[in-house]
């Protein structure tokens, strides 16, 4: 048996049950080889140590504490208020929300546009009327809404106009 054969065998032991159950003749060949070959003997130690240490990390086959099930349930019930949606339900809900928001934004824009147009038209009509009719200051004040439509206000404006015309 060559060093290569022996090391191949040793490496396989690290993963399996080890050299237990090895036929005595084969075992003797390997033991004798290890007594004479330092490199294979070291490989044997490395693999044996690997097996010992990895096996040591194996946790005890303990059952979970019965109270743990209750704790898991309690946490589940905390998060249970959130409904579980399927993928297509999420897609449908998202699409519906997008359409709804789109319609609302459209309506809002239309409304704003109509309002702005109405205000602009009213203003423009008012200004045009002033320009065309060459209204007196008193009328302008009344139309512009800067003076209350009171007899005193109109009289004051007319008096001021008379003074200026003289």
């Amino acid at each position: 048996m060559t060093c290569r054969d022996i090391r191949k065998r040793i490496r396989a032991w690290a993963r399996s049950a080890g050299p237990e159950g090895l036929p005595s003749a084969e075992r003797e060949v390997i033991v004798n080889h290890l007594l004479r070959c330092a490199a294979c003997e070291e490989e044997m130690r490395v693999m044996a140590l690997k097996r010992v240490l990895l096996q040591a990390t194996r946790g005890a086959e303990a059952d979970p504490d019965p109270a743990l099930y209750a704790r898991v349930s309690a946490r589940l019930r905390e998060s249970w208020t959130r409904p579980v949606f399927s993928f297509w339900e999420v897609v449908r809900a998202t699409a519906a929300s997008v359409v709804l928001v789109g319609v609302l934004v459209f309506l809002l824009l239309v409304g704003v546009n109509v309002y702005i147009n109405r205000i602009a038209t009213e203003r423009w009509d008012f200004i045009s009327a002033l320009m065309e009719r060459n209204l007196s200051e008193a009328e302008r004040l009344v139309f512009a809404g800067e003076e209350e439509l009171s007899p005193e206000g109109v009289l004051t404006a007319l008096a001021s106009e008379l003074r200026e015309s003289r």
Partner: protein
Amino acid sequence: MHNSASELVPDDEELVERSLAGDVEAFEVLVRRYGRAVYAVAGRFFRQPEMREDIMQETFLKAYQALHTYRRGASFERWLMKIAMNACYDELRRMKRRREFSLADLTEDERTWLEEALAKPAFELFERQQQSEDAVAVAEKLLASLSPEDRLVMLLYERDGLSTAEIGELMGWSRSKVKIRLFRARRALDKRLRRMVRMARPASGSKAHVDEPGSRRSE
């Protein structure tokens, strides 16, 4: 007229359907049915009961949140075990990794355990497994110097005897990825172990390499 066994004990798929419809008690039946298996998966990587409990809690919460992704007709247990394995992997990634393993990291007792173990004939070390807390501590420190991926494949393949195909399926990795990881993990762990053996054990004398036909020295 009496109920049949299948009517008394609902199967996994039925319980999943009921859970999706908002029946929390149906999901709790699944928790009780597979709690032990999930706890055992956590035990492959973590010995501390608190850690195992965290993994179990996280696994069932993730399973509940991802219940709509469970494919009808597939094994619920296998689907759940994948979630548990990934929860363990995430936890391994969160754990602080040591930069390198050194004998100076060992306590006096741990070092004594190591020296005594290595003083034995190699065959005896292989055959007489000694479970001790010192061995566990040495192993934990050694494994903490590996990357999470290396640690995971070493434990699953070398210790638990899973095949590369089984590891690939559990982790959602390709088989070639598992093989590459395994190769790297072995190289990293063996390098550390070889150094440990050389440092903890005085030179054994004048044994030479045996020159046999066809023999090949390792590095």
